[in-house]
């Protein structure tokens, strides 16, 4: 049964990727202004011969379907093409941009999701008390404040309070571990705070629901400690919606936290694809979106597997 599950998911992935590849391919080409127009700009000497020559060199003069089959044929053999602007292999460009995004995502999810469980549990238990109301108001604020605003304000504050501390840009961990982590702090806060707000509210309501169930009363009656009741009996049952949300959020973050990457000048996937769209860098846009789509689908697949671990009834169905 497990293998059938696996295969059906792989088939889904292939189907989704195929659909996405066609949509992205057409969309980026139907947007007005092609790569050649953008390259030559509105302020240079342009002759029709030069435009035609450049189009020919980039293969943009072929019919769409021919371009698509040329491209998809290469992709199936592992060749994603070369970036129109830099001439580097697309796979290499994506490889250079994937690490900051991966690190940012994992750290933000760890902080946001990790803290949301104790906070959510606390809110469920302390329901209605003054401090719980304060946390709840904080959570709503966290939900409504956009990440980019949080990012810019935190940069300003840091520059005011701790001048001389570098918080901008990105250094690979392998090159300078301390500098790397130092530069990750603010973006991770900017990304994880809204996530934390969202998830802790979710944990709270799921916990409230779980705590009112019969088996909790039974556990209390048999004399189990409050701690055991909350974290073993109630939490496990409250985790399913939580895991789903974390999965979806992780998927989005893996697609690059575009705005936060812009604000903190982090060279991640979000900036890569944004720049590629603005430049009409077709091969790069197509390949990056395929990678993002795959990441999204794979994360959701892992979430499905996790359901079975948390709730064995899922696997038996």
């Amino acid at each position, binding site marked *: 049964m497990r293998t059938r599950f696996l295969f059906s998911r792989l088939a889904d992935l292939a189907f989704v990727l195929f659909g996405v590849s066609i949509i992205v391919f057409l969309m980026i080409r139907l*947007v*007005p*202004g*092609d790569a050649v*127009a*953008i*390259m*030559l*700009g*509105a*302020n*240079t*000497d*342009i*002759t029709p*011969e*030069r435009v035609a*020559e*450049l189009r020919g060199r980039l293969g943009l003069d072929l019919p769409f379907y021919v371009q698509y089959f040329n491209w998809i044929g290469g992709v199936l053999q592992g060749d994603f093409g070369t970036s129109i*602007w*830099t*001439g*580097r292999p697309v796979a290499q*460009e994506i490889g*250079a*941009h994937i690490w900051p995004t991966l690190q940012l995502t994992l750290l933000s999810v760890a902080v946001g999701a990790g803290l949301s469980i104790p906070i959510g549990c606390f809110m469920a238990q302390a329901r209605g008390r003054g401090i719980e109301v304060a946390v709840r108001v904080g959570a709503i604020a966290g939900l409504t404040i956009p990440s980019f605003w949080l990012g*810019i304000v935190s*940069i*300003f504050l*840091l*520059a005011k309070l701790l*001048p*001389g*501390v*570098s*918080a*901008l*840009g*990105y250094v690979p961990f392998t090159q300078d571990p301390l500098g790397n982590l130092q530069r990750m702090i603010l973006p991770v806060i900017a990304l994880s705070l809204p996530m934390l707000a969202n998830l802790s509210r979710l944990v709270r309501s799921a916990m409230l629901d779980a705590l009112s169930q019969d088996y909790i009363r039974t556990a209390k009656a048999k004399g189990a400690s409050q701690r055991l009741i909350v974290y073993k009996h109630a939490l496990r049952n409250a985790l399913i919606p939580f895991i789903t949300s974390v999965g979806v959020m992780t998927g989005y973050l893996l697609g690059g936290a575009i705005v936060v990457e*812009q*604000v*903190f*000048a982090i*060279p*991640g996937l979000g*900036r*890569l694809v944004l*720049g590629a769209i*603005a*430049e*009409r860098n077709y091969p790069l846009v197509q390949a990056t979106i395929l990678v993002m789509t795959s990441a999204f689908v794979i994360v959701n697949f892992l979430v499905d597997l996790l359901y079975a671990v948390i709730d064995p009834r899922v696997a038996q169905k």
Partner: protein
Amino acid sequence: MTIKSIAAGLLATTMLAGAAQAATLQVAIDSAPAGLDPHLITAFNSVVIVQGNIYEGLTAIDIDLAVVPGLAESWEVSDDGLTYTFSLREGVTFHDGSAMTAQDVAASIARVQAEATGSPLASRVSPITAVNVVDDLTVELVLNAPFAPILTSLSGIAIVPAEFESDVDALQQTPVGTGPFAFADWQPNSYIELTRFEDYHQQGKPQLDAVRFHFVPESATRQVGITSGDYHLLPAIDPATALQLQGIPNVTVQETRDLSYTLVGFNAAREPFGDPVVRTAFNMMLDRNEIIEGALFGAGVPAGPLSPALVNWALDTGEYACYETDRDAAMAMLEEAGVELPVRLTMNVLPRQDTRDIAQVVQQQVSGAFEIELLNQEIGQFVQDWQNSNFDLFVSANGGSPDPDEYFYRTFRGGGSTNVFRYDDAEIDEWLDAGRSETEFEARKAIYDQVQRKLACEGPIAHIAYGNLFTAVANSVEGFEIYANGRLTSLVDVTVQ
């Protein structure tokens, strides 16, 4: 003097020299360059990194925008104005170690001219019909007609090693020039680093160890970065950012009149702008000072066809009658010309903050006679419509040039390469042809005075304003001077504490 004190003195000088050298200048620009091949790039962010830093031309442009020797030590012009003989500097080497010779000059010009290269600079050297290598350090350019702007144009033609003549890919990634800084590293979406070229032909320069260009898209981030000391230099910042940085203690904002300008373009092939009277009336309805106050925070001057930075050429805008705002007279002119008012039009707007703001003020100022709908376009769409002359009006910004011919000829000559306005005026064509072949300054100036007077009011462009070019410099930087053409030419003299 004892040996000891000599030794101490030597030690001190070496230590001082060491201290001055061990420095990297951190520059923040808003986006990554598209490529680094000096003959293919057009974007400001490419040019600012490459020109003067990695590459040099036969001539150079100094801070007053005058032509000075570059890789050529001197030159002679034949009496008929057709032959230019350049004597190259001795002992110049490329970053790869090979010597720069007349062959490289010939190959570089041939590379720009070649159809296969597709260089946007081709038209600047189009009058050159032959490049003769006389000896290793002498090269002779032959023109088909006297072409006065050639010396200015040559400052923008980078000299590359001859081996790249037919290679249009390699230099985009790893440039090889003769400039004070050599290309070292390019981290996509992160930074480009140039390092000091040890064998640079000017002894003792550059002083910096390295220059790193960071790509920082968010203006607030660049602003904080220079305040906190992460960055030393923010070239070409917008007026709003400049205003905010002016109050910060450890940052100086340098400012100069920009060579580039903002403009409203008319489509002369569409009614009612085919009629010069309508274009003049439109000009009369504009109040350029109000536009500068409202959209540019007061940082700018009303623009005529040439930048006041071209002190030798530009006329004072007070000479243009249509720059006196007079709505009533303009309305009367339009009615007399038989234009049915109000005229409904669309105006394409280049996606930049200053052009968007200018478009709104202009929309207000001409309302009543012209009902303008603003189209805020994405850059790709804007460029496409611009190229295809698919507009009634547009608001945009143009880079300027240190010589009048370079701008006028391609923009206003009938069939000119960037004459997207479809403007065609026999008188202007005649004058522009004459200006191009006249080498005597006074006579040439008289021609371009005529051209300016005519274009200012009834040309296909309403020149709006020359803005100011701002560059924020951290106080730890010494020796930086802003150039009106936006180039970072002075980096060669910069030191950083």
